[in-house]
């Protein structure tokens, strides 16, 4: 009989922790901090896949680590929040409730499955003043921490946190808060320990706006983000709006009820012409008779 290999529970937990920590440290970082007008969420992200998103009216979500895993958690959060808001009232959806669900879920995954989730997430809830803002950091093993106004996640989070700890100011306005966040993220990862200057293309930025009624979450991207990063204060409210809210494609030239593709409903006759062009009947293909005649 083969000898059963024994690993102590301590060893198993340590291995899993190390595995998760390594995975998280490989990715780019994210910071979340409160400022006078709300909560600012900034992630270093050059892709179009989101690390930051809206969960509910006053609740935002930021994550680092493996995309497929935190995307799973994000969807679960949106579903849970919408389910509770639908069955009770929108006011009854809280960041703490969500943080509890995440900590339970991540904790169970960490102890019960072979591979822990390689993620670290932040649930942020904006309040009426910076003192009432809530930031929850939930790590791969399900432990949860209530952070005091700012937090950093991902690779070299400790170094980024140090920058934030020194200079974080809850009375700062949005350009100042964003400048600090960008500087903190750029303080690591440069060659030979040099700082980097991150531009609008490398950052994913959103705020939970304290003054906005209802859904407080809004993304800042494109021209509005460039202006803000350059220290511009006067950002019109409209440009700050949900830049990706509009449906990606313009409406097709077909009735709404038709489930067929646009070319089959072709009102203008262009598609029919284009199709005819593909196999032009005026030029018979060679060898139609099989003998080249």
């Amino acid at each position, binding site marked *: 009989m083969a000898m059963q290999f024994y690993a102590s529970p301590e060893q198993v937990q340590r291995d899993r922790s190390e595995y998760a920590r390594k995975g998280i440290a490989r990715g780019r970082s994210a910071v979340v901090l409160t400022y006078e007008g709300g909560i600012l969420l900034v992630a270093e992200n050059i892709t179009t896949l*989101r690390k930051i*998103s*809206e*969960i509910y009216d006053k609740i935002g979500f930021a994550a680092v680590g493996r995309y497929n895993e935190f*995307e*799973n*958690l994000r*969807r*679960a959060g*949106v*579903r*849970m929040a*919408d*389910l509770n*808001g*639908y*069955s009770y009232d929108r006011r009854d959806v809280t960041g703490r409730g969500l943080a509890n*669900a995440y900590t*339970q*879920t991540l*904790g*169970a*995954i960490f102890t*019960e499955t072979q591979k822990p989730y390689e993620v670290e997430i932040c649930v942020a809830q904006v309040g009426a003043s910076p003192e009432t803002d809530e930031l929850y950091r939930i790590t791969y093993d399900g432990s949860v921490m209530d952070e005091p106004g700012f937090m950093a996640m991902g690779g070299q989070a400790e170094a980024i946190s140090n920058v934030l700890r020194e200079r974080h100011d809850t009375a700062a306005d949005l350009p100042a808060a964003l400048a600090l966040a960008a500087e903190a993220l750029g303080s690591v990862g440069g060659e030979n320990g040099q700082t980097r200057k991150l531009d609008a293309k490398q950052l994913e930025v959103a705020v939970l706006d304290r003054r906005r009624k209802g859904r407080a979450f809004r993304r800042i991207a494109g021209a509005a983000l460039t202006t803000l990063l350059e220290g511009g204060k006067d950002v019109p409210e409209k440009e700050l709006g949900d830049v*990706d*809210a*509009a*449906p*990606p*494609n*313009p*409406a*097709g*030239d077909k*009735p*709404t*009820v038709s489930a067929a593709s646009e070319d089959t409903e072709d009102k203008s006759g262009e598609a029919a012409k284009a199709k005819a062009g593909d196999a032009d009947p005026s030029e018979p293909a060679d060898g139609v008779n099989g003998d080249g005649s």
Partner: protein
Amino acid sequence: MAKDFDPSGRLPDFFTNSGTSSFTQFLTHAAPELLPGRRPLPPGLSADIAPHGTTIVAIATADGVVMGGDRRATMGNLIASRDIEKVHPADSYSLIGIAGTAGIGIELMRLFQVELEHYEKIEGTMLSLDGKANRLAGMVRGNLGAAMQGLAVVPLFAGFDLSPSDPSRVGRIFSFDVAGGLYEETGYDSIGSGSLFAKSALKKKYRPGLSTDEAVRLAVEALYDAADDDTATGGPDLTRKIFPVVMTATANGTHRLSEEEITAVAEQVVSGRMENPGG
């Protein structure tokens, strides 16, 4: 709420699976009891057990759409409510009005609102206006069983199209039948018991390219005409200061006319009718 109790405390699978962006579809796994159209009803006609909402009008304008609804709900010959609100935003660029069994209409409206927001959050982008209309048609169809027993509900859907095929048609209106048939309307439409009269009024006064203010006035006029000839539609109530709910959807999003705004319009309409009752 979650169907199966999991002692680990982990959220059940249907929360984390990547299956669907639809809230309704999610509810079929997580909490099917919250879905309309699945409740067994006793045989027979149940039309008289619950209040009915009445007239809604919608008008396409140069900038978007205007939708208005009277404030009455009836049960047989009784007025069940004088101040029910039957026009609501579906999301930040579209509006929904309900006529028919009020309770079922309200549930349909609530579910549709969450459905749109849920999709937007999960996918990071809004549904197209056509997509929203088709989704609502499916939800109305789901109520067909109850409709055949007298608990029918028919919504009116209108919105500002963020990416239209024709830039001059940014405001679009969709109507439905109880079987979930979806029809895009041109210019204006009305649903509910007073719709016959409201539509006749709109037919005579509507012209393409109305401004939002003109369309608001026209909507209140049409509701006045509906209330004039239909007992189930409430007119402007000057003694109690109860006036129609009127909302707009434009490039700036949805807006509900404030008490002052709608009072001013309603008083103008009423004073106009003092001189010319036919409008």
